[in-house]
């Protein structure tokens, strides 16, 4: 059993929320100040999915702080999970799948770290992990489901079953996952943290409710009235947000729905390096892209304005 009481104890999680002020006020700050709220040993949940709306700017700023002993969870983990492993920041990854996508094959870095027992990967089904976040978002210690029943995944995290008190049916009691910190990237927010997402909602709204601390980056900080004009588009309330940072292209080179496309050739280059020299290649990548640039703008400059402009053009073309 690898799930911990800290992950599913809804009473303790609620007490943490109750103890903190839930201000309707200003949340804007810097990446450095925002990520200063992450402590070694924290469980950090990432929003988005695979290479869609990944909170890469927040992850970038987190790794620059050289954290240790983190648990990192995400429904489909892309290469940011490899970064965490090679950076020595992560001891446990919680996910349903890890890689980049079919054309890029298996994650050689995950294989190396798991097969050598250096990092534990706790696997859940995609819905299983989604329900862990949702249970926490709802403030309950578990949610009943049929998923994962009968599979060997039940033993990985240490799931238990229960009998329905009304129907007698056997059900999977999917344990809640209350992360210490959620990293979320959104399309727009007002300066108070009221946030709106376009296109794929992924699991961000649940993760933001589940976590004790919510750190958010936004492509755009909009006027108060822009949010108030469409309150039915708001998915995360400001009182749930602890820190907000304005970061255009905050998911780049991953995609942000409607704004910019992902950079498949960059993924191919990244994977080619790993095919050649394994984790060492990721270490060099981190030096160049994460530890090297001192600001996120410098990080983006490594890709260049023309690449950013082309990614924006492609996004419009794809949805046109």
């Amino acid at each position, binding site marked *: 059993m690898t799930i911990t009481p800290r992950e599913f104890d809804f009473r303790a999680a609620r007490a943490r929320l109750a103890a903190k002020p839930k201000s*309707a006020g200003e949340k804007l700050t810097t990446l450095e100040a925002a990520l200063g709220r992450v402590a070694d040993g924290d469980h950090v949940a990432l929003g988005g999915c695979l290479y869609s709306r990944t909170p890469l700017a927040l992850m970038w700023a987190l790794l620059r702080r050289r954290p240790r002993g983190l648990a990192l969870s995400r429904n489909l983990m892309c290469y940011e999970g490899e970064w965490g492993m090679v950076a020595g920041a992560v001891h446990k990854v919680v996910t349903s799948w890890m890689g980049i996508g079919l054309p890029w094959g298996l994650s050689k870095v995950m294989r190396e770290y798991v097969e050598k027992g250096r990092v534990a990967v706790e696997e859940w089904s995609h819905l299983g992990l989604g329900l862990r976040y949702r249970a926490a978002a709802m*403030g309950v210690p578990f949610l009943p489901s049929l998923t994962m029943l009968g599979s060997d995944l039940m033993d990985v995290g240490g799931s238990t079953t229960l009998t329905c008190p009304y129907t007698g049916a056997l059900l999977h009691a999917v344990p809640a996952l209350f992360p210490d910190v959620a990293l979320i990237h959104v399309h727009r927010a007002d300066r108070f943290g009221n946030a709106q997402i376009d296109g794929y909602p992924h699991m961000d709204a649940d993760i933001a409710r589940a976590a004790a601390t919510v750190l958010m980056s936004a492509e755009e900080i909009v006027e108060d009235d822009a949010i108030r004009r469409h309150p039915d588009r*708001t998915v995360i309330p400001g009182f749930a947000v602890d820190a907000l940072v304005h970061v255009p292209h905050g998911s780049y080179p991953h995609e942000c729905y409607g704004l910019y496309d992902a950079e498949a050739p960059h993924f191919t280059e990244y994977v080619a390096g790993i095919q050649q020299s394994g984790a060492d290649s990721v270490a060099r990548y981190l030096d160049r892209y994460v530890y090297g640039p001192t600001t996120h703008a410098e990080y983006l400059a490594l890709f260049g304005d023309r690449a950013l402009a082309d990614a924006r053009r492609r996004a419009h073309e794809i949805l046109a």
Partner: protein
Amino acid sequence: MTAAPVTATELLAVMGARALRDNQTVFTGVGAPMLATALAQRLHAPGLTMVVEGGVVGPAWKPGWLPISTNEMRAAYGARMLPGITDLFLMAQRGFLDVGFIGGAQIDQHGNLNTTAIGSYERPAVRLPGSGGANDIISLCGEVIVLTAHEPRRFVPRVDFVTSPGYLSGGDERRRRGLIFGGVARVVTTLGLFGFDPETRRMRLEAVHPGITVAEVRASTPFDLLVADGVGTTDAPTERELAVLRALDPARQFLG
């Protein structure tokens, strides 16, 4: 003091507003609670977030356009988010709501409220409208403030039906029955302010409003009311409080 006399609703709204702190999230309702919350926000709690039952977060009601129900367009005016009713209550269950306001047809000495039925549930003498969100608010918010006119018929030793559990039979029964958070922090009536004895969880008078005596409160409370040592007197609503409050409801739709 201001010229116009202070109405019951004005008194409840002002005393309710004073119980709120800055940066709190407050589950409020139509009438006095809404006025109390909006008043606090305009006076000493600019960082306060109002939420209402229809599924509204952070509304900015137009003075003169206060909603009659918590789920009509007027209640959503200026809202920052409309998460839906179930998801809003689930935020309360998660622990996002610090304070909730409720009222009730009956309240007893342990802070239990009844809005369901006078008499038996199946064949009541009077069928009341029901819980609505009152049970959820008192079960899930960090603490609850009850605002009510102090009419003797409303104050009973034990409610006929526990729609919204306060401390049940008192002591730690609320916790033993699974409500591991919250409870009734304060009862604000037209006669005074009340709390609950930390041991027995019986209602205790803590302050009377100006011009009200403890004897009058006892006479209007048909159960054995505890009285705090050195029971205080509340400060009368100030001109500023009344001016801001009255500006919210110029037609006196709710202020009376």
